[in-house]
């Protein structure tokens, strides 16, 4: 038995090394080469550049609380006393609060009060009071955008219809009508409202 085991030890060690070369070096290398060549923007994080400066990634949400911007979802990514809004790109994650958690219900109730003060008493779309899985959700639902149109229009001195037109430009429908949900990209929308988005349609 002992010689049998030692005989098998050689392939165990050497095959692991060889498979490491194949799957740990060649494989990521090939994918990196193809990705960087064919899709350089996506492969490097889908960054949005304004006047030569990176202002964020179109895939990663940012914290917004000023009245002239559309607000994204509550975030649980890296929430600390010095960063109460979350959206920390190095600390993705959800609240993990259970469905019967008092902390969850209290947090949502507080969000409701806050949103009502800023937006009036219309029913609040649920995505604006629930924290996302990643804490970095870049999107809100079209209903959640619509809910905020009056506030943003008033803060910017625009008509609601003018704001709605900008929202429509950053609303994406599901692929083939069913893959994914209708979404509004909050960062691109706010950049557009600021007149900073030049190339994005």
């Amino acid at each position: 038995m002992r010689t049998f085991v030692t005989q098998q030890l050689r392939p165990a060690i050497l095959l692991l090394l060889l498979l490491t070369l194949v799957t740990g070096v060649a494989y990521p290398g090939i994918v990196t080469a193809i990705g960087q060549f064919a899709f350089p923007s996506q492969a490097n994080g889908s960054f949005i550049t304004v006047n030569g400066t990176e202002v964020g990634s179109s895939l990663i949400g940012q914290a917004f609380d000023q009245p002239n911007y559309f607000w994204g979802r509550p975030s649980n990514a890296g929430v600390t006393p010095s960063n109460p809004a979350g959206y920390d790109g190095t600390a993705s994650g959800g609240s993990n609060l259970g469905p019967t958690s008092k902390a969850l219900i209290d947090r949502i109730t507080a969000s409701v009060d806050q949103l009502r003060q800023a937006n009036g008493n219309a029913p609040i779309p649920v995505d604006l009071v629930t924290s996302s899985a990643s804490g970095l959700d870049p999107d809100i639902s079209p209903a959640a955008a619509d809910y905020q149109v009056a506030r943003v229009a008033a803060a910017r001195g625009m008509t609601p219809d003018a704001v709605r037109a900008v929202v429509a430009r950053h609303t994406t429908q599901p692929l083939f009508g069913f893959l994914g949900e209708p979404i509004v990209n909050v960062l691109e929308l706010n950049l557009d409202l600021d007149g900073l988005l030049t190339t994005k349609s």
Partner: protein
Amino acid sequence: MSMPDFLTFAALLAALLLATPILGGYMYRVFEGERTVFSPVLRPVERAMYRIAGVDETVEQGWKGYTVSVLLLALVSILAVYAILRLQAGLPLNANSAPAMSPDLSFNTAISFVTNTNWQNYSGEVAASNLAQAGGLVVQMFVSAAMGLAVAIALVRGLVRRSASTLGNFWVDVTRGVLYILLPISIVAAVILVWQGVPQTLNAPSTITTLQGAHQTLSIGPIASQEAIKELGNNGGGFLNANSGHPFENPTGLSNFLEMFLILLAPFALTYTFGRYAGKQRQGWVLLGAMAFIFVVGAIFLMHVEANGNQLFPAGVDQALGNMEGKEVRFGSAVSGLFATITTDTSTGAVIAMHDSLTPIGGLVPLFNLILGEISPGGIGAGLYGMLVIGAILSVFIAGLMVGRTPEYLGKKVESYEMKMAMLTVLVLAVSILGFAAVATATQPGQAGPLNAGPHGFSEILYAFASQTANNGSAFAGLTGNTPFYNVLGGIAMLIGRFGMIIPILALAGSMAAKRRVAPSLGTFPTTGVIFGVLLVGVVVIVGALTFFPALALGPIVEQLLQNAGKVF
């Protein structure tokens, strides 16, 4: 649950049923050493690997030799990953300055990736270097998945061979699994993911100033290459903490569809491979039918309850989108429920929504999938060997008891030795899940883990040991798992769940291989019909339910009743 959600589910099932015969037949040819489309490129690589490693591909192994090889590769792998994680701070390609992992965390993480579990008590953004992820963890994502494939194929060979003493050569099976099956599909899938927006770079994380003037550091890295094998290999270990819920791991509806497809692809196709080996495709379709039935029922239930929202949320919240806590807008609540079902029907454990925040009775679905031992359709390889042993062998035995005949499967008599091995796999799962959960519930370091109070806290503990024993890796992630107590117990649970299954199953395979084939008679219970499929579902669900009902009643079931009564904790 709306029409688009139904269409997503229907399109997924259609794509899988189309792919099943294609990949299933291909896998048969790969494991039987036949020439395939990739042979001109890969065959020279394969032969060179055997030459260097000293493997004679013409020599087959008996079940003991096969088992020793499995265990040795696992042991060497655990030591290698452990060393990388302990030393990563000083190794190259550490763009995010990850410090060395602690001994207990390295122990848990190394076992986790070698056993195909991918339970993660660390956050990838800050706690693992690019070298550790791409060169250590991703390698095990391939190797552990190929190990599952190899063991499944060895069991199938044992079932169909007559008076044979060998099951194949493990080194050959594992090498072919990586080279011919996992690698080509992963490359294609990873490139599609990059196209959809998943980063693939070795550059360091980048810090930007946001529109409102805050600083935000964006974690990038070789994410797409890990994401593809993470789903295809049923691993589930995310490059980033939020896993597939993170927009950098899963940016669009299309990427999400591809990831769900990849998770189910190999487990579906393996049933066809099995039919091919058995010489009758219906043998495989029956298994797939039983697996898919459990999967579809669970998925529709979970999609439905998540889309219905949480009645404890305050009035004034419009819950048209369903229970969105811990979910992403681009996926929606119903498809998040579908993904949660898929990831726990297999041994994947990737998540696009936080399972901890599912509705109480919704959270029962993933938990139930785990305790069934993941056979609907189960992990890569592990699903097939689990279903063949817990399902098929046990079912023919029970059918045999009812009519008073020696049970047969594929023309082989199932006798007391086989039943002992089959029951061992059932009991090992139950003892590990319930035993460790009981220890954690009764001791101070265990009680310190849960985030949530009330029955949900117990669910977090039960889920942790069910997930690790079943080699899944998803979590009710509120549990604080990075403590010596949970790291060490979880590591042991993962070893028990993996090798407590594999060893008896290979023993059973060896015993079945040695048997003669008996001609079917009038009294033979046919294993190709609907009745057998119904029996399979019944046996699997009843064995699981009887074993675990008391524990489930204390967790999600009582929590749902209390939620109905409006109680919060």
